[in-house]
């Protein structure tokens, strides 16, 4: 270990990982869909639907957890004086990356957090996704080592960093006031949710912890590949994994097997490629969908654009039948993942500093 056990940051990372694992399972116990206690991509698809960006009447709900993540992050960043408006690093590339983050997740059926929640609930179909995510992160790291860089973000004047948090405050108002143009499903997985205040408070807590700790799944995989057990994120990830596994076992949610798993399909190649796309993009833009929300809360306008892209992606994957279901992956889903891989390859080719 290159850090000491007296290191406060190590313990914050450990608590963040453990909380994410335990509460991720408990949110499903309290009403969220099975194995989807926390799934940023599913929640984004639900929220896009609630905003009218798609018309799947089974996938429309303004998920309070997402609002909590961003607002928890901004409050924590404000309290610890870490809020800083910054941006200007390849904004359009980040916007499109946000769309493809959701495409990859939708084809796998879940973001990296849900990937491990599924695995720790005994779902063996997630194994292909784990290989894909690790491969994607590894390829992304190879690219970074060879000079691929979207450019540095700069401190920005004005309040650009406040725009995304302000947008989420507006969503919070919509959630409470429920104006008629916000749509809430009465059937389907979007109609399954934990009580609003429980989801919101857990979202706030996890948002604050993730802001303090910088914990995210792809970040943990990245640091583990680079530094192994010397990285605090490695231990945070281990705490997350064991916390989720233990809670799944204790709450009777553990069902070991390949077949008949909730919200899973058997097209392993596409699970692999979907998560490979997510892992690769996450390294390129500095974090998985969850981390983008947290960074947007810290005033990072670039991450904010990725979040906007994610919301657009949430609408597109449902409207264009890209999202996979238990029946499998549609042809548009397969083509979209390949389009995402083509996008990340083109960005890599054109964003490379060959003097490195």
């Amino acid at each position, binding site marked *: 270990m290159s850090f000491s056990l007296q290191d406060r940051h190590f313990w914050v990372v450990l608590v963040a990982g453990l909380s994410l694992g335990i509460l991720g399972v408990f949110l499903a116990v309290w009403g969220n*869909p099975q194995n989807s206690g926390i799934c940023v991509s599913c929640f984004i698809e639900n929220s896009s639907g609630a905003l009218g960006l798609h018309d799947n009447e089974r996938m429309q709900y303004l998920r309070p957890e997402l609002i909590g993540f961003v607002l928890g992050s901004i409050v924590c960043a404000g309290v610890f004086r870490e809020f800083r408006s910054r941006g200007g690093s390849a904004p359009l590339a980040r916007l499109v990356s946000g769309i493809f983050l959701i495409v990859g997740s939708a084809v796998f059926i879940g973001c990296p957090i849900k990937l491990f929640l599924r695995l720790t609930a005994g779902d063996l179909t997630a194994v292909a996704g784990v290989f894909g995510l690790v491969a994607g992160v590894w390829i992304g790291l190879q690219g970074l080592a060879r000079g691929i860089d979207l450019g540095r973000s700069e401190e920005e004047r004005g309040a650009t960093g406040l725009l995304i948090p302000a947008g989420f405050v507006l969503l919070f108002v919509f959630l409470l006031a429920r*104006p*008629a143009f916000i749509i809430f499903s009465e059937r*389907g997985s979007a109609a399954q949710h934990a009580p609003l205040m429980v989801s919101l408070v857990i979202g706030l807590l996890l948002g604050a912890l993730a802001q303090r700790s910088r914990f995210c799944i792809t970040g943990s995989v990245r640091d583990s590949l680079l530094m192994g057990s010397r990285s605090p994120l490695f231990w945070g990830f281990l705490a997350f994994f064991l916390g989720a596994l233990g809670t799944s076992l204790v709450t009777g949610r553990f069902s070991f097997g390949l077949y008949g798993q909730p919200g899973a399909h058997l097209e392993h190649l596409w699970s692999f490629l979907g998560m490979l796309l997510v892992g690769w993009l996450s390294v390129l833009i500095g974090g998985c969908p969850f981390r983008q929300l947290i960074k947007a809360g810290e005033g990072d306008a670039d991450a904010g654009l990725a979040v906007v892209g994610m919301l657009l992606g949430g609408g597109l994957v449902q409207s264009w039948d890209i999202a996979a279901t238990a029946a499998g992956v549609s042809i548009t889903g397969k083509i979209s993942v390949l389009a995402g891989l083509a996008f990340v390859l083109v960005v890599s080719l054109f964003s490379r500093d060959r003097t490195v």
Partner: protein
Amino acid sequence: MPRDRFDQLMTASLVAVVIFVGILLAGGEAGKDHHQSSALDRQLEREMLYQARMAFIERNYDPVMILRDSGALQEALLKLTELARTLPDDAHNDLLSGDILLRMSQFDRALAKLATAVRRNADYVDAASPLNQRPLIESAVAQGLPLVRDRLRSQPDNRTMAQILKDGYYLQSRLAGGCE
């Protein structure tokens, strides 16, 4: 903080805009808005469409259900074939076919029909839906899946049975819940 007249003008305008929005909201203008009511209409339309679908099912498939309940299973299947000519690709036809085939102990065909029904309309596995048919589908999976597995073990090249096994796993996965 405002430093010059321009800043003061901008700040005052911002306050005026916020007050204006407040007045619109407090005066209930938002509730009278045409777009607001069209959003409500859309929700109402959605609900009406759902109710109409329920009434449609009842009207068209009532004779089949009467035959089924009286034990005339072959006649009920014939009636469904007849209905499929006028209402092709209707999920409820597949569901009732699956139900009847299950009663006839034709587990493999029942699984295939039920999987088609759920693919067309996920409400059949939704506990919150009035169309919920979870007990029927659970029973088909519990009885049918082991038999299909056994048959496939003895005839590993049977492609139809392999497809039905996939259908069974699909139903199992949908019954388990999760995101759609």
